[in-house]
């Protein structure tokens, strides 16, 4: 049997659906088709559970083909514990977003879904790419659909926001491109490699010169070139200013994808490329990122507190939450890293859910100003309950997913630096303050002008909206109560990274290996099953 290119299928399926949708004659029927397509690609991505082996840190389901050998570029993709959940998060959020935007997008429906699905391919591609140029291609390509999503379906200042988003992100990433090219030549000129390659596994083996005091050593410069690109994407304080603009202007589904997945491309880049490729520089300059991460947590929380606009509040809470992720990554220990990966997923779910909820109320009232609400709890009970659960997840109350992530990160950061840990802990308090204060102002107290408007009574969530939120709520508790269901898939990869970060190398397993392993397991099970039945027979 020919090997099934499972990862390629997962990556390019959305693009194929996008092309199919583009060929449809009009806007009618696009939404149901998009929903079916998104569920289908989520279903296919679930096949990863069958073929992915959580026990090994190796790169799995690898596919490698030469693409542009003249430039040393190959089509090389694979999945390991670092990217495993991010892929699933991405595929999981798509049906949620499609269903959630059922009414939010009322013009150019077809074009919107084409952009959304193309974006999906770009994002998935950057999570699986193991060739630096291929990664860069996907990383940059993701800007284009998002640029259109914000620019066409966004709010009043959408053009400003989307241009800022595009130029900001591109400015960060072009220096990374040069760093990538430099690395490729370094690989060529190194003994033992000796050929022009952008293969990440080969580049891991490079020993780049690093002098502890020198900012000008190649490793330090490359480290900063990569970090700049990813820090802008995360976005880390103080280069976060594009994010509130983009979030506020983006349509609800755009915000969900932006916060849910696109920001993770930055933090993922740190874990996948920056730390293993530039271990000494990351160790030496890590304090900068620890510090900026901690500052970002507190800054994001403080700014969120004073926002009059719910969506802007959520956007700044993103800055704060991504600060935790940065803190966890640069704590440089297993707790921090595990927490950071977990927090990436949490943030995708809880912030995604918050944006969806804000979008739902906005569809009803066309306003996001906190002042105009108040007393919503009496009018919209189901909405209130769901919002409350998501709020709890966002402020990391135990038993919700947020708690596990933040706890692990704080544990890790106290090990790394007590001061930073202490600063970050205050962020936990501030986080509770701004979320709960907002919750109080919106849902309790006197009925606001929009809530008490007799002419436009508010309706509680429809069945569709409940269906959108249900999987997110389930995940909030699932991830909060049994984190091991999730952590066990990335444990071996994180352990491997943390133990060998100075000489990081990854093994490679192809689909063929995975198929064999699956077959072997099934055989084992049947043998055991037979043995049990025979035993049972004997006993009888």
């Amino acid at each position, binding site marked *: 049997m020919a090997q099934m290119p499972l990862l390629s299928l997962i990556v390019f399926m959305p693009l194929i659906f996008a092309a199919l949708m583009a060929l449809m004659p009009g806007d009618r029927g696009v939404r149901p088709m998009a929903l079916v397509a998104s569920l289908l690609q989520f279903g296919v991505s679930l096949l990863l559970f069958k073929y992915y082996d959580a026990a090994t840190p190796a790169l799995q389901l690898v596919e490698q083909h030469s693409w*542009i050998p003249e430039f040393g570029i190959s089509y090389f993709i694979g999945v390991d514990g670092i990217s495993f959940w991010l892929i699933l998060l991405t595929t999981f959020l798509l049906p949620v977003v499609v269903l959630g935007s059922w009414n939010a997008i009322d013009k150019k429906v077809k074009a919107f879904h084409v952009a959304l699905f193309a974006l999906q391919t770009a994002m998935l591609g950057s999570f699986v790419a193991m060739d630096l140029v291929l990664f860069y291609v996907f990383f*940059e390509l993701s800007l284009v659909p998002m*640029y259109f999503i914000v620019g066409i379906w966004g709010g009043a200042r*959408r053009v400003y926001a*989307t241009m800022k988003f595009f*130029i900001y992100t591109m400015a960060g990433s*072009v220096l990374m491109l040069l760093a990538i090219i430099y690395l490729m030549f370094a690989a060529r000129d190194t003994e033992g490699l000796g050929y022009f390659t952008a293969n990440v596994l080969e580049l891991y083996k490079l020993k780049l010169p690093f002098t502890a005091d020198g900012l000008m050593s190649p490793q330090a410069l490359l480290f900063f070139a990569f970090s700049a690109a990813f820090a802008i994407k995360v976005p880390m304080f103080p280069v976060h200013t594009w994010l509130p603009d983009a979030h506020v202007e983006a349509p609800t589904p755009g915000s969900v994808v932006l916060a849910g997945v696109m920001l993770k491309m930055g933090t993922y880049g740190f874990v996948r490329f920056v730390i293993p490729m530039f271990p000494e520089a990351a160790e030496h300059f890590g304090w900068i990122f620890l510090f900026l991460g901690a500052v970002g947590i507190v800054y994001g929380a403080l700014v969120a507190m004073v926002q009059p606009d719910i969506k802007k509040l959520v956007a700044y809470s993103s800055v704060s939450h991504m600060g935790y992720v940065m803190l966890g990554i640069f704590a440089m220990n297993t707790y921090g890293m595990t927490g950071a990966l977990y927090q990436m997923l949490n943030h995708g779910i809880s912030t995604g859910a918050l944006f969806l909820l804000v979008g739902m109320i906005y569809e009803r009232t066309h306003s996001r100003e906190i002042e105009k609400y108040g007393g919503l709890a009496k009018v919209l009970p189901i909405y209130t309950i769901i919002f409350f659960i998501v709020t709890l997840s966002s402020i990391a109350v135990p038993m919700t997913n947020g708690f596990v992530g933040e706890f692990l990160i704080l544990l890790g950061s106290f090990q790394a630096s007590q001061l930073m840990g202490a600063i970050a802990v205050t962020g936990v308090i501030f986080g509770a303050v701004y979320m709960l204060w907002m919750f109080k102002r919106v849902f309790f107290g006197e009925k606001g002008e929009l809530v008490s408007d007799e002419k436009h009574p508010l309706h509680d969530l429809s069945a569709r909206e409940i269906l959108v939120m249900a999987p997110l709520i389930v995940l909030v508790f699932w991830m909060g109560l049994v984190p091991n269901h999730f952590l066990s898939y990335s444990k071996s990869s994180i352990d491997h990274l943390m133990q060998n970060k100075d000489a990081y190398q990854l093994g490679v397993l192809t689909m063929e290996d995975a198929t064999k392993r699956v077959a072997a397991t099934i055989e084992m099970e049947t043998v055991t099953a037979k043995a049990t039945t025979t035993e049972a027979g004997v006993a009888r």
Partner: protein
Amino acid sequence: MNHALGISSYLIVAPMLALLAASLVPVMLKVFSGNREPHPFVTTTYGFIAVATALGLAITFLGGSKFGFHNALVSDGLSLWASVIVLVSGGFSIFMMHDHVETQTKLFSEKVFLLLGSLIGMLIVVLSNDLIVTFLGIETMSLCLYVLIAMSRETILSKEAAFKYFILGSFASAIFLYGIALIYGTAGTTQFPGLMEQVGPLLESRNHLFLIGIVFVVLGFAFKVSVFPFHFWTPDVYQGAPTPVTAFMATAVKAATFVAILRLFQSTGYQHSLPLKEVISWLAALTMLVGNAAAIMQANFKRMLAYSSVAHSGYLMVGVVAAGFGDSQGVASAAGIVVLFYLLAYSIMTLGSFAFVALLEKSVGQALQVDDVRGLARSHPVLAGCMAIVLFSLAGVPPLLGFFGKFGLFSLAIEQNFYWLAIWGVLNSVISVYYYLRPIVLMYMQGEDSSANAPLIEMNKHIMTRFTLFGSAVLIIIMGMFSSPILAALKAAILGRS
């Protein structure tokens, strides 16, 4: 000395002969039918056949390191691929001329004749192995262009443009010729191979006359490809010339001249002159900055594209710097590969963008403003989509063709340790994003607020121009995703020569 020419000499010039013969047909037809203009479609067909024949002959006979006319012409990978770029650009320009209001009908057969004549000049430039022959080629190419620009239906701007181009071009040619004289006086030869051997010793011994000669020749070239500070004519001429002619100038002229520049810089001897290296690096850096910064401020679509073409000359100069001042073995060949690939990419993108402009120009002398494309995505989704692809590619968004062009150039710069030029180049491409995305913003994100009963933008029904735009968008995607075969072919053609 044996003055007889071998058959190979004639094979090398076969494309030019074919162009010459074919270019005469429409004009002759006109003369013999009592000065009655043949149907433009007939003329276009002749032009197309001429270009296609020349292309076929070029692919058949060029390449593989052959010399002709006592080493005055060389036929190698560089000249083969440059001829292909030049001829393809010429072919599409004829298509666009057929459609365009400022070039069609009146004196159309003369215009095709001039364009084909200009192509002959360009082929001479790319095949030339001798500075004097290069000069002759450049003059042939330019003289035809001066007239072509002036022969527009639009009366004021095109005449001004032609005159300006002519006067400044003559100055540049004179200086160029003066440079050749100085070079011949010091080096004793004007043929590239001999010259390249002399560069090292002459520059090492601080021969100032030779240095001045080289600088003058570079200046002459710089004018033709609008490198700062000799770019001032570009926006005026690009704006004044009929759009199809502008497209031709922006693509073919640039491709031909850059190949000549590369031939001048394929020696490692330039290392001995640090000032020259500094000057040319700075020219590259400033050209990028001036082009991009000025393009941001343009309201006229063609002027914006003109400044963008200045910026692209700056990127290409990075390749020239690497070729001339890089230190590794075979850097000139490597530079040839990436510069030609970039020229190919740039020509395709530029043809597409000017085809777009031509489609939107309604009447004679009416300038297309950037703001005019507002809301185009609603009325003409396919054309807007094609133009968006072209613009994204010009901005260097992967995985489109323009990205891989830049990737090649900047990797060459990094390989040769021109880090600051590479950094400067990518930062400039970020600046360029701003103006390349502006038409996209206008096409896609604005226009619907201005009420639904606003008149839809009218587009000309120019089939051939549409085909050019559509074809360039498709090529940008396909050649971007699958650039490997092209690069392999370029590599084989250029490295095969040594």
